[in-house]
């Protein structure tokens, strides 16, 4: 709902809202203001999501690409499907576009099953990973392709193309052929083409994978800005977790055809549902151990590598005794002596003594590897907040790596 209300408040800023949802038809300006007052794609019922995926499964031969997957996506949401290659995320996207048919389950768009709707009749558009621009058509004709198929009037097509060209900042490029464009420009044409029909849902298959790092980062921002202005539901498939974290409202992490977790970027990072996700998303220190005692939702876990650790337990509580304590590197602080505030472990501070084994200066942060007495490594990353490095540690130096109980996560194996 956060996203929805934001869309509503910015509706008057959106030049593209004038056509309405179904709207490949012309709307006069007076109608447009009425249209703009309404929120974007109206769900069938208040609590009905725009897109509902119900235990969908798809196999290729013996390979189960998507396995009994269920997911709801709200109107106006920016949703990311994140996972390693071969996890089924692209297959899921292709089923939404209609290029693959689910073996089992249903896909509901606005409450209606879209199984019988052919790909060229779905109010869903896709931006392809390789862009799939038509090489024999100019930028203008590429963007107009979908509009012509929708039987739009010639003048309206010209107006919409001009609008889309302006939206992706490609003015002056209209007559060029795709092979006369740079990678970034091609990406914009693909985006404009897939948005021109004003789909209810835009599917983006690794849209930034072909761009270099700098361009990718600026394009991320532009995509988000665009999505905010248009209010279109975006579903993006990516294997790049940073990309997913930056852009998406919610992320669905996929593994072996199933959704391992669906959460906001923050929850995904700070409260991963499993050890696999904790390791897949970001860096992490992991210590296997056994729960020794429980005291007011504070656990004491005995680990072979890091000794006894005090850990805060979140809801739901762990049920098993064999657990894994996880701590993100940026939450591990280093100091020359143990922090003074810790008296008798009342603040739940864990201290691990060791020797700095490796220092990596990365500009904004410095990452350290500390070898504990057990031989295990603890990774720590600290922001370089001061220009003169009074806090830097050298390899070979004895340090205390410490972190609070609240910063630890307890994961079941």
């Amino acid at each position, binding site marked *: 709902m956060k996203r929805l209300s934001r869309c509503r408040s910015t509706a008057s800023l959106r030049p593209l809202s004038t056509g309405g949802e179904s709207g490949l038809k012309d709307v006069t300006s007076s109608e447009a203001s009425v249209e703009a007052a309404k929120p974007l794609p109206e769900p069938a019922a208040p609590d009905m999501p725009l897109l509902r995926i119900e235990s969908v499964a798809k196999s290729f031969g013996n390979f189960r690409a998507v396995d009994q997957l269920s997911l709801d996506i709200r109107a106006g949401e920016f949703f990311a499907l994140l996972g390693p290659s071969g996890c089924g995320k692209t297959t899921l996207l292709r089923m939404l*576009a*209609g*290029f693959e048919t689910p073996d089992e389950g249903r896909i509901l768009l606005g409450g209606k099953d879209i199984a019988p709707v*052919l*790909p*060229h*009749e779905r109010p*869903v*558009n*896709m931006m*392809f990973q*390789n862009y*799939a*621009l*038509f*090489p*024999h058509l100019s930028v203008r004709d590429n963007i107009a*392709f*979908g509009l012509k*198929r*929708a039987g739009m009037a010639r003048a309206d097509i010209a107006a919409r193309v001009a609008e889309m060209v302006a939206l992706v900042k490609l003015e002056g490029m209209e007559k060029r*052929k795709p*092979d006369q464009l740079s990678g970034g420009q091609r990406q914009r044409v693909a985006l404009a*083409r*897939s948005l021109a*029909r004003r789909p209810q849902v835009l599917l983006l298959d690794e849209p930034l994978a072909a761009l270099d790092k700098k361009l990718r980062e600026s394009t991320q921002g532009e995509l988000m800005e665009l999505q905010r202005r248009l209010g279109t539901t975006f579903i993006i498939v990516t294997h790049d977790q940073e990309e997913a974290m930056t852009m998406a409202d919610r992320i669905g992490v996929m593994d072996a055809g199933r959704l391992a977790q669906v959460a906001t970027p923050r929850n995904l990072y700070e409260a991963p549902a499993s050890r696999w996700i904790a390791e897949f998303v970001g860096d992490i220190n992991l210590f296997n151990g056994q729960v020794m005692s429980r005291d007011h939702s504070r656990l004491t876990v005995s680990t072979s590598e890091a000794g006894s650790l005090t850990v805060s337990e979140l809801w739901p509580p762990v049920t098993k005794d064999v657990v894994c304590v996880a701590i993100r590197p940026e939450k591990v602080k280093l100091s020359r002596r143990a922090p003074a505030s810790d008296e008798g472990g009342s603040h739940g501070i864990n201290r691990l003594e060791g020797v700095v084994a490796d220092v990596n200066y990365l500009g904004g942060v410095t990452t350290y590897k500390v070898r504990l007495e057990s031989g295990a490594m603890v990774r720590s990353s600290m922001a370089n907040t001061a220009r003169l490095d009074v806090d830097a540690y050298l390899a070979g130096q004895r340090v205390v790596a410490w972190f609070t109980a609240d910063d630890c996560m307890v994961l079941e194996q």
Partner: protein
Amino acid sequence: MSARRIFARPARLAAIAPYLWMVLFFLVPFAFVLKISLSQTVIAQPPYTPVFDLTEGREALTAAFAQLSFDNFRLLLHDDLYILSYLRSLVVALTSTLILLLIGYPIACGMARLPQRWQGVAMILVIVPFWTSFLIRIYAWINILQHDGLLNKILLALHIVSAPVVWLSTDSAMYLGIVYSYLPFMILPLYATLSKMDASLLEAANDLGASPRRAFWLVTFPLSLPGVGAGALLCFIPIVGEFVIPDLLAGSDSLMIGQTMWLEFFTNKDWPVASAAAVALLLLLVPPLLLYDRLQRRQLEGNS
């Protein structure tokens, strides 16, 4: 520098080789033919005059040059026989190319959509007829099409016809022979273009509201035009000058230019007129070649 010296010479030779080939095996023979086409026919050995003899000195050579004339080309324009032959050649070549396109395109399309390992098999099946001599294959068609041939036997046995049908020495038989012989030349360039096409383009067209049929006409077909052009020219040009197939399979009431040339050359022993006909045919084929060249160049410019 040393590397450059090593590679420079063979590289330059390699660049010259095609030109050398063209000069030796096209331009020089063409000069002979052109000279004969400007000569007069005589009953002698060789059967034309003048004959350039370098040993007789400069005077005689100049005199020989003065004897050359365009009379034979004038004859080509004034005698219906030649103009009708040219026209028939063009009509036959155009019609055959069209039929070849209509048959070859779906086959090439089907081949390009086969799973990868079957594409090689299909390719071999297309090429396999080349392992038998072209002439033998045409004679085989005579066998099939003749009065008591295989085709008539089957048709009679199935009671589709009550009396043998005349197939041989008809235009239909000739078209059948031409289409059969040239089909691989149409399929291969088409297949080369179609198999390179990115499947996601069709999906994109589909996604943007084009039904599969419209996607074919809006995306696949325009993108396959270079292949269509290559295949069409690869068939059209040799069919215009085709001699064996019309001679063996078609009737004798109207001749293609290849047959007319053969008649002039071997039956009438009129080398100059036959040569003039050959030169005229070459000139006739230049415009389509230039057109193709221009299309290809535009294609290349588009890609760069």
